[in-house]
């Protein structure tokens, strides 16, 4: 499916994501990585769990609020079959657990700290994603 290049929305969205990352560090002293926040919410107890769950609730509430603003709608298109979505969820879950981060934790926060681990992780996962999309779309002809 074709999507339009939306540079201004992308810039605004990126600035908001970066702003949230800076605020989470300035106020809570935490890395705004979705993998770390989710895995911590699954395991740790007590007060450390509360801010994680609150962050997740806020993140999920964002599209709910946005689509109710006047004149706003959100584009969503996923043509992958259910088995591919479930399989990709399992592969991503295993991958980010071992890598200790994903696009937000390594790709935004870790790279901003110039962490060698995050720079390595970002190069590896971006390359793997380019290769996978190439194989799925141009070798296998899509799912």
């Amino acid at each position: 499916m074709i999507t339009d290049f939306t540079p201004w929305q992308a810039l605004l969205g990126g600035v908001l994501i970066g702003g949230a990352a800076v605020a989470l560090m300035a106020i809570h002293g935490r890395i705004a990585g979705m993998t770390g926040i989710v895995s911590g919410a699954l395991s740790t107890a007590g007060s450390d769990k509360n801010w994680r769950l609150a962050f997740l609730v806020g993140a999920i509430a964002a599209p709910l609020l946005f689509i109710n603003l006047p004149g706003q709608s959100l584009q969503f298109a996923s043509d992958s079959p259910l088995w591919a979505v479930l399989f990709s969820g399992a592969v991503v879950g295993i991958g980010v657990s071992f890598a200790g981060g994903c696009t937000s934790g390594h790709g935004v926060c870790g790279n901003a700290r110039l962490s060698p681990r995050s720079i390595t992780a970002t190069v590896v996962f971006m390359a793997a994603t380019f290769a996978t999309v190439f194989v799925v779309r141009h070798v296998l002809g899509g799912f």
Partner: protein
Amino acid sequence: MRSIVSAALIGLVFGAGIVISGMSNPAKVLNFFDPLGTWDPSLLVVMVSAFAVTFFGYRLVFKKQSPLLDIKFHLPTSRELDLPLIGGSALFGIGWGIAGFCPGGAIPALGLGEPSPFAFVAAMLVAMILVSRLRKTQLSTRSLTPQPSLN
């Protein structure tokens, strides 16, 4: 209480950034990774602008002794470029390329009420729980067996 309200508002800003930039839309994400097909460079603009804000913002934040609501900054200390990091990142990229969902995009996308983000997040959570259990059992068996001393 202050901590919960603040974390929820920061999560809301993060989620707003994801949906406004279109990163909750798997088709848009996958199109970035398809320069030979229906290419959409938006993801690059998102990552570069989020990186730039965080890069300069962190420099200001780390001039302080501690964050506002905690006694210290919680920062990863490991510096090793090991197999779990590289293999895990490769697996993550493969999974991301299959359906276009990553954790940071899929969790806010739950709020759209579409079925596929729920399927993705459910499978991801099960996998994360299984890996964490497996690693815990491995660690506890290892600590039970006498360790040969190094050096």
